[in-house]
């Protein structure tokens, strides 16, 4: 079978599986968040934590709960990392320094999972499972909760209440993420992923050398790393490491886990607002953008454009033999289209076009299909913008799902859309304009070096976490600056989304007339896709022209 046919079948199987699963999973998630019964375990959790599960929160209280939970999560994880040498199962790993611990704590709480450190030499087993794995679950559940609160603001009328953050958080974790992660972890072990508690043991190799055999609770972390679109690897090599991702079929399973919740949430959205066609329109835009990225990256990597791939006879630098160019490209498009950031191959060594598309994918704002929860609320914000632009064109008061898009809403949407690019471009510009910072961190000269800087800040501010890993990020300055980028890149948009939700929930639906633009169907899908591309294109074209585009053309 030719590699191209195999690659097409591989994508086809993935799309088929997602098409099959997104309906039941989307409906299930809608039921989880709409129901008012608590399970016995949940009631116990609420009682121990002292949470009033019956309270229905205003947007400001909901936002304060998100921030409070994330604040204690950062502090807790920071403390954990600072004292790890005194804890059991630390394998003799030293405590992290203050800037490194800050960066890692923020990184995992914001669902970014940017890693300045190498897991195998910086994090013991207890930190990996009781610190990092826990945040993999709850940071994803925070994203889900915020998305659900926004969806409720379209579904509800004449109320200032958006639901209960604590209940949404616990249900998302225990009823959605935990069962799927547990099943996937067992499947990964069947594929060869390690799950034990041994430390590195030295063995004598076949040829008489020595090698350290590593171990750890890898499978349990691996499954939620992907399902929660987190991306933080147990090892430095992440999903390229054979103990994290041993075979071609575990590779496809990992890509499926990355995509399954983001592609199912539009169905949840459609169910909750009582009009499934609305969800279909959203998922159509997400799928088109993702499909385009898969096609372009696959083409570029399989063709092997560029000086080194041409000389070597293929773009295999930084890629594993068992995945090949096709399996690596599919993973790369999916990990950067969601805010995952796990890698099964190293994007820094991708062709200029392939690496450039992974960068562009993040700059779209992580909506193709985006992270767990974050992808849906990001796309809904862009949908509000699309409706507003269409309203300007035809001179009607814009409406989305019966809610008027007025000055308040447009202001919040504009602030949302400006936040990430401002953080990204200013952060990258400071590094690029400071020779000492360039010398300290940038590996490759010329246009590729600028790509490394842009990629680092795009990854941090979009909470992706992948890297052009030649960029040496573990310096005190970059740890601090990228940490701030992750923090503001996550929570400023979340507060704006919740404020938007608050302003929408109180409205009573306006009358739908012949002049109201339908927000389903191909016209709206085209418009929304156009808005996504134009917003990112206008914002980032100058930067991209100087970096990957210049590299591809020169």
């Amino acid at each position, binding site marked *: *079978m030719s590699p191209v046919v*195999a690659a097409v079948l591989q994508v086809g199987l993935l799309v088929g599986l997602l098409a099959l699963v997104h309906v039941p999973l989307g409906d299930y998630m809608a039921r989880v968040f709409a129901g008012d019964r608590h399970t016995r375990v949940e009631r116990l959790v609420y009682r121990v*934590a002292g949470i009033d599960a019956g309270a229905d929160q205003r947007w400001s209280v909901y936002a304060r*709960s998100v921030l409070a939970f994330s*604040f204690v999560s950062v502090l*807790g994880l920071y403390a954990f990392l600072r004292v790890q040498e005194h804890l059991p199962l630390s394998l003799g790993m030293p405590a992290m320094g203050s800037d490194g611990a800050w960066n890692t704590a923020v990184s995992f709480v914001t669902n970014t999972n940017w890693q300045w450190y190498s897991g*195998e*030499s910086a994090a013991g087993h207890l930190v990996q*499972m*009781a610190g990092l*794995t*826990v945040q993999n679950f709850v940071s994803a559940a925070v994203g889900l909760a915020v998305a659900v609160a926004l969806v409720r603001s379209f579904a509800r009328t004449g109320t200032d209440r958006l639901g209960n953050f*604590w209940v949404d958080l*616990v249900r998302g*974790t225990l009823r959605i993420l935990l069962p799927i992660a*547990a099943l996937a972890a*067992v499947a990964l*072990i069947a594929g*060869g992923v*390690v*799950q*034990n508690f041994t430390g590195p043991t030295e063995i*004598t190799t*076949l040829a008489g050398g020595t*090698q*350290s*055999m590593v171990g750890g*609770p890898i499978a349990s972390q691996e499954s939620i790393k992907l399902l929660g679109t987190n991306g933080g690897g147990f090892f*430095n*090599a992440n999903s*390229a*490491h054979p*103990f994290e991702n*041993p*075979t*071609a*079929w575990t*590779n*496809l399973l990992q890509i499926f886990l990355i995509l399954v919740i983001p592609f199912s949430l539009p169905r949840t959205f459609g169910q909750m607002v009582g009009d499934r066609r609305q969800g279909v329109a959203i998922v159509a835009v997400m799928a088109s953008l993702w499909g385009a990225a898969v096609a372009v990256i696959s083409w570029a990597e399989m063709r092997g454009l560029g000086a*080194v791939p041409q*000389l*070597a*006879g*293929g773009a*295999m*630098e*930084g*890629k*594993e033999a068992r*995945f*090949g160019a096709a*399996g690596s490209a599919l993973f790369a498009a999916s990990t950067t289209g969601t805010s995952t950031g796990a*890698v099964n191959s*190293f994007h820094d*060594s991708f062709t*200029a076009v392939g690496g450039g598309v992974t960068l562009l994918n993040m700059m779209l704002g992580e909506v193709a299909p985006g992270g767990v929860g974050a992808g849906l609320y990001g796309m809904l914000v862009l949908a509000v913008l699309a409706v507003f632009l269409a309203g300007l064109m035809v001179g009607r008061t814009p409406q989305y799902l019966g809610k008027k898009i007025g000055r308040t809403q447009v202001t919040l949407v504009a602030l949302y859309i400006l936040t990430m690019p401002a953080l990204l471009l200013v952060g990258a510009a400071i590094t690029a304009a400071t020779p000492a910072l360039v010398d300290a961190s940038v*590996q*490759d000269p010329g246009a*590729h070096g600028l790509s490394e800087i842009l990629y680092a800040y795009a990854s941090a501010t979009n909470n992706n976490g992948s890297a052009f890993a*030649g960029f040496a990020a573990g310096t005190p300055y970059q740890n601090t600056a990228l940490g701030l980028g992750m923090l503001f890149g996550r929570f400023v948009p979340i507060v704006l989304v919740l404020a938007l939700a608050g302003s929408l929930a109180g409205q009573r639906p306006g009358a739908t007339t012949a002049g109201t633009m339908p927000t389903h169907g191909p016209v709206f899908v085209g418009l929304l896709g156009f808005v996504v591309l134009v917003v990112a294109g206008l914002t980032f074209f100058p930067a991209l022209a100087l970096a990957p585009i210049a590299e591809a053309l020169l």
Partner: protein
Amino acid sequence: MTSFVRQCFAGLRLLLVLTVLLGLVYPLGVYGAGRLMPDHADGSLLEVDGRVVGSRLLGQGFDGDQWLLPRPSAAGDGYDPLASGASNLGPENTDLLATVTDRRDAVAEREGVELAAVPADAVTASGSGLDPHISPAYAALQAPRIARERGLDLAVVLGVIDDATTGRDLGFLGEPTVNVLQVNAALAMLD
């Protein structure tokens, strides 16, 4: 007490409860399930003459013409599981260009073939630095040398390589590969 501080205390208590559930109970549960497949859960270890010589999943360094040689590795000094990773050098990087040129020359000379016959995986470092596989093309290229060095029939060496070759999963997932450690372990047993 302000509302934010109160929320923080609720958040802290919830975080502790969830840490017990997700950070201890869940990994231990998965560990328990893994005990049903101990070979996989413990790293697919490979034994030769009752001695663990490595993992079928982790590449290891080989030096010498009697062995099937693995891909170049950027993990530490080569195939170091405590320093997994890639070179991360860009597609136009001049250092990488020089390295690949040297590797191609070396492989072509060692195997006595044309430069154009050297496959891509022979001259590029993998993502993990621990890639246990090479392409069937690179393995076939090395077979005559191994047969010569070990005084074996070429057919025997090709048979050993064939036993360690896997096609694409389901016929279309990933790429066909040859497991280097499995080949070398089988070669060692022939002695």
